């Protein structure tokens, strides 16, 4: 599938204009095929998600039950209906339920409904939540998701991005100090990072919140929300310490170890030895001979860090009672709130597909050996 092919053979320099047109056509054709195949994947993935998230139609059955309950109450509360004979009462209820079901499209077969849900999801017409409401009282899925986005961006975004760059720079610097105690320390600590963030979170809460009582158990700000912006940010910072620490503990050492090993492998290439022999400075070697060839991997890592944001961390956010997107997804599932589940999944799917699409071009930009679409889909 990888469209990346390496062309080492030098191209003849003649007929440049025609070649440029050709390669433009090739890139265009490749892009269209790639877009189509990615879109196909997104459609299938979303369809599967709809089938799971609607429990194969059970959620709609629950909604029908709710509609009937509401209609019965509505009809009962109307004084004019008090003296209706039971059959007429039942008929009135059935008619109203049918109308309401028709309006909501629940009278269609499951597959048709699924296709309708999918069309809406794919066009990002996220609609209204079934049960969840945003803190501002809105039922719109878009608003519910947008409301949960800032806490996630704050925690996972800030610490995730910071960690990403810290990991790479630390890894680069210890790859130079191969075999020293700093290097050995990171190698030794790496296996500890196989435990997930929530696991460290529990330990951190136990030590700093429960035992030492210096940091809060969870949440985002103190209970009476501080009035001044200064007080608010301080309270926020205090609540962010433990979740951030748990994130650092679970990723930092392992990532540093992996990047360091990666850089070490690249620094043992012959062209690096030649560069050293030429007498280039350590900085120049690092920049042009180690970082440059590993740039595609670094960019992939960065892109995946960004996408992972969208799912947040359901367990870590639960442990720390952090009102982020991961927690929102978990709550949506608990409420059987299919629209919210779908909304979050479809955006994730789009983001991932788009990033995968974009990465091919970025590889071609940063690595002269890579050409977009050459060799077709292998």
């Amino acid at each position: 599938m990888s469209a990346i092919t390496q062309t080492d053979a030098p191209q003849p320099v003649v007929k440049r204009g025609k070649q440029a047109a050709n390669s433009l056509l090739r890139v265009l054709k490749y892009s269209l095929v790639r877009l189509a195949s990615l879109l196909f994947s997104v459609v299938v993935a979303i369809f599967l998600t709809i089938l799971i998230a609607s429990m194969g139609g059970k959620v709609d059955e629950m909604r029908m039950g709710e509609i009937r309950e509401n209609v019965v109450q509505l009809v009962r509360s109307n004084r004019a209906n008090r003296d209706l004979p039971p059959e007429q009462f039942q008929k009135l209820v059935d008619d109203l339920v049918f109308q309401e079901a028709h309006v909501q499209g629940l009278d269609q077969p499951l597959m048709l409904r699924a296709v309708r849900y999918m069309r809406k999801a794919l066009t990002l017409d996220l609609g209204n939540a079934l049960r969840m409401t945003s803190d501002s009282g809105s039922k719109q899925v878009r608003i519910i998701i947008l409301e949960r986005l800032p806490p996630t961006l704050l925690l996972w975004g800030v610490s995730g991005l910071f960690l990403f760059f810290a990991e790479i720079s630390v890894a680069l610097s210890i790859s130079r100090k191969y075999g020293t105690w700093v290097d050995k320390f990171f190698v030794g600590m790496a296996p500890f990072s196989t435990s997930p963030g929530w696991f460290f979170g529990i330990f951190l809460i136990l030590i700093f919140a429960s035992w030492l009582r210096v940091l809060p158990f969870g949440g985002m700000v103190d209970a009476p929300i501080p009035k001044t912006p200064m007080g608010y940010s301080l309270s926020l910072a205090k609540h962010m310490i433990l979740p951030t620490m748990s994130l650092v503990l679970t990723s930092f050492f392992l990532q540093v170890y992996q990047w360091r090993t990666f850089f070490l492998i690249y620094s043992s290439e012959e062209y690096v030895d030649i560069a050293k022999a030429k007498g280039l400075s350590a900085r120049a070697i690092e920049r042009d001979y180690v970082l440059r060839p590993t740039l595609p991997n670094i960019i992939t890592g960065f892109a995946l860090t960004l996408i992972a944001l969208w799912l947040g961390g359901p367990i870590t956010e639960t442990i720390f009672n952090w009102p982020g997107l991961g927690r929102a997804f978990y709550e949506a599932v608990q409420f059987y709130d299919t629209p919210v589940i779908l909304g979050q999944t479809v955006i994730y799917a789009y983001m991932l597909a788009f990033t995968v699409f974009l990465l091919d071009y970025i590889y071609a930009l940063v690595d002269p050996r890579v050409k977009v679409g050459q060799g077709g889909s292998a």
Partner: protein
Amino acid sequence: MKEIQNSFRELLRYPTAVASMAMIFMAVLLSAYTMTTTPYDEALRLWRGSEEDWYQYPKQAAPAWFNNFTDRKQPISFFLNSADIESASGGVVTKTIETRQDGAQKIAITYEFEYLYDDFPQDLILYTTTKDTVKKPLVGVVWVTPDGRKVNMASYSVTQRDVYRVAQDDKLARILRAENPIEGLFADPASESPLPLKGTYQMVVTSTVYESEASLDAELVLHGTRYGIAGTDHKRRDLSIALLWGMPIALAFGLLAALGTTVTTLVIAAIGTWYGGWVDDLIQRLTEINAVLPFFPILIMIGTFFSRSIWLILGATILLNIFGLGIKNFRAIFLQIKEAPYIEAARSYGASDGRIIIRYLTPRVIPMLIPQLVTLVPGYVFLEAGLAVLGLGDPFMPTWGKVIDDARTNGALFEGLYYWILEPAALLLVTGLAFALLGFALDRVFNPKLREM
């Protein structure tokens, strides 16, 4: 075979690998011990936590060995049953029966125990059971303190099975002029602040059953705040059951998930590269679809909507990882191997596709597979625990994740019941670490590029 032997010898050069293999070996031994001593069905039944199974145990008691590390000794739970005098521990029971001429039996049951703790127990409960009685016997309970004071605690008539909970006896509290009858019974009269009097206590239960073939037995249960080697939870369950049974479950889940995902991925990648064409295309598409599906959120949905059964979650985990990113790595290697001369030789003598895939293609990737398999195990072990922490753990199985979840949702962190969280967490950590260390070492042995690094 020789290759594997060499690799193993190579592996023994790493102290961490030896240590981690020892740890995994211990874990397997412990699992085998657990599975033979407490059968699966028995463990599940006990973990359901019915009152009959656990009435003798205190609520949320820390392990007994905590007393070795604290200045203030907390009372350790015990129970003494007159029907089972030999196995009584924590004290002594004696039962005397005097048969009168009319066939009636005068029964006296004496419990004698040392109480050398610095705190009061949670509760003191007397369970009486009678058999074949026609006329209801009357039971009298007398308390004798170490300094010789006698308290008539209660007298009541009993039927087949009766429970006398001392902590709820308000009348006794008034007699003892204490807020709490337990404190009243154990308090040192000489001390200003309520402190238990240390020494040997006695409880004497006397009764007369009027029929010659009838019997009466009584069990004294003292609910302390310490119990056993692992302590107990909010449902009085002995945590050692979940801690012990959590081991085979975690190992089974982690190993099966890792094995299931890597082996299937390997075979599928081999099939895709071997046949090429539409088969390969289909596999590529499925991989792409799988990448777009968010794995953990789907597990959350399956756990909530369909079933929390650990085996269903295991199946879903394997299914959602078959077409994972691992396929790409294997594929790259298979594309190279496919062109190797020995494959061509196999083809020329007419080996079938299946034979080539199973016998010639896949074995070449095993050096890559083994470290990957072992490295994946901790992730799956923690995955199962993580689902449990979200409240999506298997409803019947005693697992480490469920213990952590129970502890968290019942305020173990707020109330400082750290043993409850730390015990399963330590086991998770050690198990995860053992596999991670072994995986790291294997990676170095099988991946020559890493060997020097």
